[in-house]
């Protein structure tokens, strides 16, 4: 897929092949505590990548770095070859272009849903990008139809169930038809039915032409949503590769705190423990 990208400032044509994201030697600290530590990663267009790690492994921070919300303390992140820096985002054209092409779904829908009604929520991003009224009306309608939330149009977010909130949140980012979708624990805190509904919607989205990067600690999710997997621990990449291979490596998963030893008592009365995976999705 040849992609030509016009940089308005430098009048430069960047020609394929370029990775969607090039992360090189990035560190990020919250008040001197490193959340991401000298991490390098390249993500190619059209890839579906899972960032697998326990809580506090730095995966959420990495997503926020990729979305241009945080900026590296050291190292650099490039989007299609263009560095993501604070100065770069001061330029309206660059910022709007980037925001339209890259979307982030936050883990907590209460953070994501800050508008008074479902309609306002889905229309927020298009309004910010100053699309025409007709275009907004049409795109919002399509996004709500595809997420099956049209009947909730005038509902305030606090009157939605967990699954409905997640679908509204998804509609509010997919309405821009981004080329990169960053997902932070998309199935967390959902009942099993809503979980599979959300996962099905994500699998069906974009027909494989979009880049999807999912941060999760849920091993059962990885093979459904990713064809490439990075395992994170303490802000570093522990291993990278094919999901099915990585998931078989019990020792690796234990080191990443993704599985825990599961103790149980045998008939003889001796306590026996062995590594235990969760092939099914967590609640």
């Amino acid at each position, binding site marked *: 897929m040849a992609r030509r990208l016009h940089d308005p400032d430098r009048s430069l044509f960047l020609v394929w092949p370029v990775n969607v994201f090039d992360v090189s030697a990035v560190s990020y600290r919250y008040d001197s505590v490193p959340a991401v530590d000298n991490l390098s990663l390249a993500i190619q267009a059209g890839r579906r990548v899972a960032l697998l790690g326990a809580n506090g492994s730095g995966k959420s921070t990495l997503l*926020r770095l990729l*979305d241009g*919300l945080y900026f590296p303390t050291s190292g650099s992140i490039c989007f299609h070859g263009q560095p993501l820096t604070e100065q770069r985002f001061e330029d*309206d054209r660059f*910022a*709007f272009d980037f*925001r*339209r092409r890259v*979307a*982030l779904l*936050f883990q*907590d829908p*209460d*953070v*994501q*849903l*800050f*508008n*008074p*009604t479902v*309609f*306002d929520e889905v*229309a*927020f*991003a298009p*309004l*910010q*990008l*100053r699309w025409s*009224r007709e275009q*907004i009306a049409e795109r919002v309608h399509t996004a709500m139809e595809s997420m099956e939330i049209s009947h909730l149009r*005038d509902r*305030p*977010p*606090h*009157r939605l169930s967990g699954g409905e909130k997640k679908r509204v949140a998804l509609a*509010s*980012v997919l309405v*821009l038809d981004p080329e990169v979708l960053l997902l932070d624990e998309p199935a967390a805190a959902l009942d099993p039915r809503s979980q599979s509904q959300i996962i099905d919607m994500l699998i069906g989205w974009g027909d494989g032409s979009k880049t999807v990067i999912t941060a999760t600690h849920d091993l059962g999710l990885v093979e459904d949503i990713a064809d490439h997997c990075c395992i994170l621990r303490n802000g570093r990449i522990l291993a990278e590769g094919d999901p099915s291979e990585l998931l078989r490596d019990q020792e690796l998963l234990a080191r990443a705190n993704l599985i825990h030893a599961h103790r149980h008592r045998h008939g003889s009365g001796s306590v026996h423990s062995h590594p235990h995976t969760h092939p099914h999705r967590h609640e």
Partner: protein
Amino acid sequence: MKKGFIERTLANLLSASEYAATAEDMAASRGLLQAIDPRIKVAGLFGLIVAVAASRRLWVIEAIFVFSVMLALSSQIKLARLLHWFWIPVLFFTGTLALPAIFLTPGRPVASLRGIYVTVQGIRTASFLISRAEAASTLSALLVLTTPWPWILKSLRTFRCPIVMVAILGMTYRYIFVILRTAFEMFESRKSRTVGTLEPRERRRLAASAAGVLLSKSLHLAGDVHLAMQSRGFRGEIYIMQDFRATFRDWWWLAAFTTLIAVSFWCGR
């Protein structure tokens, strides 16, 4: 035993969310006022409230009150609800406050009780206070119980309210429920862990820490919401889509409200 502060706070939080839920349901139901353009409704009801506040004649206030009760009845608002949420609390508060005025206001005495006089002026001033408070609270109840909050806010744009304020009022309403739930869960879990009664000092410490935890969480939430807004293209300027369309019927309502307000002002001079 007397209810503790945790139980009372929980009850407050619960009743606020129940009130909000019922108000939202009522605003979404079908009725006379629900069908009117929110901009006209906001202007009309606010005008009537000002007329109530300005009137120097009791009968004008009473007439507006009767009119507002009729509007309530034709908008599927049950009088029992108005009684429970507005009329009785207002009567309790304003009534007890106005009662001493009957004796305290200097004027022509009509009855005496061991040297304390009930005056005509006292009765009049108490009636003014109570009927104004009741009529105004009924009118503001009509607005909230027949109009979804986001619509009220959007209609404020028509009256030149700065868009920043409209956005903030909408977002505040949204996050009241998030923080309310957090506070509720916090007190609920605290209640289940508290055995016996706490020392007064401990109780105060507990309440203040709860507020402190909530404050830290709120500021953290504000930071995350800011990121979520930025992620979706927010650059400091906010835009709101408002597509109210006044129909022929709405213009009739506007004329009716205008006439009524003007007549009330004229008669209440």
